[in-house]
């Protein structure tokens, strides 16, 4: 276990051991500073690259990577470059996501494209994406051929899955697809959220910690259900009074995002209500009125769509707990173990 030997379990808010999260976040930020420190200041670029990473963030994905590495025999030092790569790639995708979604705010400040325009923002996203390969390749170097191959394999799989998930979400919205079922949504959430946010960081940790001797497929199920539960809860919060830091209440309805609640209410609605929903979805974002958004939000409550989604989120959390015990059976019962287990509870308790 090296540097990550068992310490006293100190649960923080959200069920995560706070000191561990802080330590992993600090180590990751140091790596980010190193890799984002350019030899010269390129105008219209370097300042943009540093913007999103500097806005903070919980560093949950990097911590998932490091905790997995420690669970499977590695150390913080051995995994932190992978953790930095994860955070850089995550920020790169956020820049592109914000452009694709037309979002105005990110982490309490205007989005990069709102500040600098779409072309420069996309360029910065691309550059940040490529910057992420540097720590990833640096992390691969000392691992040996087999582990390096696994890192590239899981990274390519993640990229494909994430792109597919994003394509599904955007395609459903742009083509006004309404004949979706819960399985479609879960499949999209697996690709869009679970793979990049949960599965890939965990897989990198497993490979680095186990030096290629542990099957990275081992963590897929846990990450899958964790990610789906997270996405549903995230969608639910968007409809609540507290949609989350820097997010707009009912923003998903204004964007006609295909959520589990929307899929449910389309099924549960009367013919007339369904027709009204479909008319609403066919509008552009600017055309969707506050009144119609509030009507749809109310209908979701009335038809039990919110309650249904809550139950499914809890069910996915239950699946994640079940898979956690299979995945991490035999691993040390230390803070890293508690952290990974605590992620399930954190989904519901996070601020």
């Amino acid at each position, binding site marked *: 276990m090296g540097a990550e030997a068992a310490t006293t379990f100190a649960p923080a808010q959200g069920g995560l051991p706070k000191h561990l999260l802080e330590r992993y976040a600090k180590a990751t930020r140091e790596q980010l500073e190193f890799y984002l420190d350019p030899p010269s200041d390129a105008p219209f670029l370097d300042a943009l690259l540093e913007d999103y990473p500097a806005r903070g963030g919980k560093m949950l994905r990097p911590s998932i990577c490091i905790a997995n590495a420690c669970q499977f025999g590695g150390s913080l030092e051995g995994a932190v470059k992978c953790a930095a790569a994860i955070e850089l790639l995550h920020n790169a995708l956020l820049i592109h996501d914000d452009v694709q979604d037309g979002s105005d705010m990110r982490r309490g400040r205007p989005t990069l494209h709102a500040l600098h325009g779409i072309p420069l923002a996309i360029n910065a996203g691309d550059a940040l994406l490529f910057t992420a390969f540097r720590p990833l390749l640096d992390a691969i170097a000392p691992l040996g051929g087999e582990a390096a191959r696994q890192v590239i394999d899981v990274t*390519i799989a993640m990229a494909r899955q994430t792109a597919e998930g994003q394509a599904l979400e955007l395609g459903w919205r742009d083509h006004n697809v309404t004949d979706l079922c819960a399985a479609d949504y879960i499949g999209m959430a697996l690709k869009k959220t679970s793979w990049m946010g949960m599965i890939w960081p965990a897989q990198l940790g497993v490979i680095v910690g186990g030096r290629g001797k542990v099957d990275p497929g081992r963590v897929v199920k846990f990450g899958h259900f964790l990610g789906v539960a997270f996405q549903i809860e995230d969608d639910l919060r968007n409809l609540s009074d507290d949609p989350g830091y820097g997010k707009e209440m009912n923003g998903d309805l204004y964007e006609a995002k295909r959520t589990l609640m929307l899929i449910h209410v389309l099924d549960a609605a009367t013919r007339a209500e369904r027709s009204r929903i479909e008319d609403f979805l066919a509008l552009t974002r600017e055309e969707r009125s506050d009144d119609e958004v509030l009507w749809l939000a109310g209908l979701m409550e009335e038809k039990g769509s919110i309650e249904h989604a809550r139950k499914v989120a809890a069910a996915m959390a239950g699946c994640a707990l079940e898979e956690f015990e299979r995945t991490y059976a035999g691993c040390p019962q230390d803070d890293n173990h508690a952290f990974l287990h605590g992620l399930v509870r954190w989904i519901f308790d996070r601020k």
Partner: protein
Amino acid sequence: MTTRKKAPAKKAPPKKQAKAAAKRKTRPTPARKAPDRSGAVAAEEAAKRAAEVTASNSADLISHPASQHGAEGAIPVAGVDEAIADAVKSGYDVLAQSIAQGREAAARFRQGEYNMREVPKDVETAAKRVIDLARQISVTTFDLCEEMLGQIGKVTGGPPPPGEVASGLPPFRNLEPAKQGGPAGGLGAAPPSHRTIEGMVLSVEFTGPPAKSLTHHLARPDNPTSPDQISAAPLQSRHPGADAIPVARFSVDFSRGGLLAHIDVPKGQKPGIYAGLVFAEGQDIPLGTLVIEVEG
């Protein structure tokens, strides 16, 4: 439960029956004789957990394992809301499908690009694979990066400093022969055809109402496998009310050197698309998804 039938004439009085039942040693009936790879077992276990979490109506039950282990399995699956059980099943199903698709994509990539045995210490190849990753996400700046990384094998002593790269590069996009079906090396380049090498040709023979297969290849099993060791989950439609269609059996198609599936489409089967995972015995990852269309 294994119990033995007794002669009705020697029926014991109720008290004795209860005593005998208390003394009787019983052995649980084995749930199955062959591995169950449908995901149903895992889904069932997970559904129990889901019921616990749902019943609590909060995340209070999700505590540290130290306090959690003892409470496991307290709520029977029968108590799980049907819609929730469906969601749990969907959760496992979509994961299995994604893994199968990922496996196929990985096989395609490997077969088309290089021999995997050469990979481990081949930095140039690793770099190419990273570029493929980049292609999946963005195209804007990576043509240049690809060009640079393509030089790794040609430039000794590591990559040159910025600014010195361009002069040493051959003309753009001349590094590799053009790929089939699209612009050389670009995003639109079609993946090289590998299926007949890495995958397995699938033919489907139908009886009953007209139908056609939309799946023409499956992944090969990892181990030597006979046709009777291949099975498929009943083909399901996404539309409620449409009955599932079982796959009768698999056999070898000597004419094409592949696998032949036999499907009896029931009379009156609702037209539409039906799909089910195909498994090989002893292998958890499905060989692919068999998709058919029942025509109207």
